[in-house]
């Protein structure tokens, strides 16, 4: 498979009044053509920072991507692109869908015009044909009365319709990758299912790759080919979807899977929980970030951060327990 996106040793720091928040602490991953990668983690684990870094949306002085980080999109280093290339990348080569469509849509512009704007910018279309193409895109994302709705403003749309319009806009530039950052979090359950179905359909029809960022394991299970679990700025487990849900290796992944009630779980039984909450990302974390909440914590976990261990085809996890298991293998 062709490699579209390759990220190596990504480190992102946000400068805040309280101190420097190291939101991403060395993430390595890649995305191939036509696949869906889900990045799953709780709030504050750095998953959105990863997405923003790929789009070069992290800018000084609020934050920065460390110099040793590398992001390659189709062989070109995103971090060394000039302004012109970045413009082409954002919304053109990589489309993005945000969690809250109301804040990412321009409230003073008609929906159709906003989609047309993207077409005019990235595909060099003239205003009129761009607008009719925008209507077509709205039809594709199943908005009823698309020609009429194209002339409406974002506040006249419901949450689900706004997210549909965002999808149409992300798809407008003919992107190679669509990054969907919590695309369904603000939506009702039945609407969620429709939006995820729409994204899958879009992927199938256009062959784009997708990076799905979510806190919801169920959504990842339903849509992704591979899943990466993030915790405190690091990717702690990578696996194909089936493998991850059937055979989770990292204690954090296991705890996440167990904390939701299954369809067969006994009513009013206690759910498995992790004690405490994720660590503060200001400053350094000694040892494994999950150690303090982990049920099988060992002395070494508090001392050194474990490296990724290969467990099988495409399955890796960062845990000292597994390093012990694999015949004295050492952390890279």
């Amino acid at each position: 498979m062709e490699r579209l996106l390759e990220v190596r040793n990504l480190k992102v720091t946000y400068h805040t009044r309280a101190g420097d928040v190291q939101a991403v602490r060395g993430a390595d991953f890649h995305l191939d053509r036509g696949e869906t990668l889900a990045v799953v983690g709780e709030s504050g684990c750095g998953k959105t920072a990863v997405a923003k870094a790929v789009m070069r949306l992290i800018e000084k002085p609020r934050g920065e991507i460390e110099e040793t980080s590398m992001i390659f999109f189709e062989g070109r280093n995103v971090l060394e692109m000039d302004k012109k290339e970045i413009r082409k990348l954002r919304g053109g080569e990589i489309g993005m869908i945000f969690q809250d469509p109301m804040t990412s849509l321009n409230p003073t512009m008609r929906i159709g015009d906003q989609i047309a704007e993207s077409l005019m910018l990235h595909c060099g279309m003239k205003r009129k044909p761009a607008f009719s193409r925008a209507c077509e895109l709205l039809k594709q994302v199943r908005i009823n009365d698309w020609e009429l709705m194209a002339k409406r403003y974002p506040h006249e749309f419901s949450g689900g319709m706004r997210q549909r319009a965002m999808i149409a806009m992300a798809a407008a530039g003919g992107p190679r990758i669509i990054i969907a950052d919590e695309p369904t979090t603000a939506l009702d359950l039945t609407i969620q299912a429709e939006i995820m179905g729409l994204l899958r359909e879009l992927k199938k029809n256009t062959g784009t790759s997708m990076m799905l960022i979510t806190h919801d394991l169920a959504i990842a299970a339903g849509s992704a080919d591979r899943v990466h679990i993030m915790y405190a700025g690091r990717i702690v487990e990578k696996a194909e979807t089936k493998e991850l849900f059937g055979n989770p290796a990292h204690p954090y992944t296991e705890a996440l899977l167990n904390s939701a009630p299954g369809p067969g779980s006994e009513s009013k039984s206690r759910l498995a929980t992790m004690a405490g909450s994720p660590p503060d990302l200001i400053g350094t974390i000694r040892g494994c970030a999950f150690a303090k909440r982990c049920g099988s914590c060992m002395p070494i976990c508090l001392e050194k951060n474990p490296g990724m261990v290969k467990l099988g085809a495409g399955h890796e996890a960062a845990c000292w327990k597994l390093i012990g298991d694999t015949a004295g293998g050492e952390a890279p």
Partner: protein
Amino acid sequence: MSVNGHENLIEVRNLKKSFRLGRKSLLVAVDDVSLSIKKGETYALVGESGSGKTTLGRLMLGIYPADSGEVLVGGSNVCVSGKKERLEFTRKAQMIFQDSYASMNPRMNVGDIVAEGIDIHGIHCGQERTGRINELLGLVGMGGEFKVRFPHELSGGQRQRVGIARALAVEPEFIVCDEPISSLDVSVQAQIINLLIDLQKKKGLTYLFISHDITMARHVSDSMGVMYMGRILETGVSSDVCRRPLHPYTRALLSAAMLSGTETGFEAQAGKGRGAGCRFAGRCGCAKAECLLTAPELREIEKGHYAACHIL
């Protein structure tokens, strides 16, 4: 649904509430809802946003006056009581809010927030009050050192714990939990759910658990009701409702929850179906002509399992 003072702590009969939106339009938020909750049990109210579940919860605490119908808590009517009775009632029934941050005074520290009910009712003072605050914080798994902290210094899970401690302060019998976990992370959600379950066992509390998450609702509740546009479409024992859903809407909710992302076969046409017929007819895959004309009533389809649908 028998009227039995000993068995049912909460009785809701034909409750109706509408809000005026502008001069001409009227939003019927809760439309002719009846339900009952047994003492020590949990009734889960499930539905999507705008279905009227929060309004129903607030009506049950008398926060809003109802247009018609009545709510009986422990035999006494919530809606018509005077000021004194109203105060007495708030010792019996409390609420836990979805947005724990918005529901707390940012200028008060945790100790004072928890003790607000104690102060209002004059239950304890001085040394006794401090002891009670420590006890309450201990009950929700927090140390006494949190007393001097302010809401903005706490994490979401900790704030929700404070919200629960505040509700418990007056030793209520009935607590309305309005989406208590929906703004929390998955791992913290489980902590709060366990806490609520433990407290119920320990204190024999009765809960109304409002949630849009049908799997979590099933887990914590004894019986549940599925709400859609102000009406309860299906109600019964939770495991029955989830294992053998009768109403097409419940089935859609469940399939969306279990296999997140599968097609439900519904086009979102919110707002339609507000006419005389079934509320869900506009989105229903199996709607008949009858569904558009008359609204179905709740009928007992299986024993103790009610649904409002013409096709059943």
